[in-house]
């Protein structure tokens, strides 16, 4: 690992605080987005099937 990369991950000694905060942002926004996308997919599919039937 280069020195620059190590500095980046260490966050000046605050890695334990900065990374969880950003990580949680990724988890919360990601989970909301994924759930919404999947639900829409399922709804579109169910409607299409009912039209075929």
């Amino acid at each position, binding site marked *: 690992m280069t020195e620059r990369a190590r500095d*980046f991950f260490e*966050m*000046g*000694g*605050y890695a334990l*605080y*900065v990374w*969880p*905060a*950003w990580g*949680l*942002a990724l988890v*919360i*926004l990601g*989970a*909301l*987005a994924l759930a*919404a*996308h999947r*639900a*829409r997919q399922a*709804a*579109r599919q*169910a*409607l299409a099937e*009912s039209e075929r039937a």
Partner: protein
Amino acid sequence: MNLHRFANPARFLRIARVVAPVAGWIAFAALLAGAAFGLVLSPPDYQQSETVRIMYVHVPSAWLALQTYVAMAIAAAVALVWKHPLADLFVKAAAPVGAGFTLLCLVSGSFWGRPTWGAWWVWDARLTSMLVLFFLYVGYIALSGAFDDEERGRRAGTVLVLTGIVDVPIVKFSVEWWNTLHQPASVFRLGGPTIAAEMLWPLGLMVVGFTAFFVWIVCVRLETELLTRKLRARLENSPG
């Protein structure tokens, strides 16, 4: 005033199918750029050094948590007074998103408070009123799902959302009305922002990203709800 002109679900679906992908891509690009600036390209703070990077997720989530609630309360009022059919659905679609923003605000704030203040949590007016906002979101979600009759559940939820609006000015002005551990506003204040331009940029990108994300996800969730209702109506009308 004929609000029902905009309430036509078919019309909404046509608009949403244009707005959603645009908002989605704006959100993706702005959040990516915001992360690049916020985590790499922006400088550390003169007092807080690298912990200031938590601001770039904490502040946008706090703003969006409040704005989502205001939007929900307006929609709840419209639903109550004008019986606008999409307004009810908007409240329902936005609530989990607002709860997510509020949770992110609270937890990222905790991770910011520990190294800077020296405490994960304090019961000052700002933090406490933000926790109340989280309970309002969770309360709405629980209440609106607690009735067998969907209509009654939503009605009860609407009243809760409208009552809870008093918490929004308390969150916003708590740092001015009472002394708190939380610092006062940095961006929207008399005399202009007290954040250096290099730090205001990534913050602005993240706010745009969070806002576009909200628009995208509400479009997606509303479309889902409308399609589900259409399907249900079809199944109820068909014999067997």
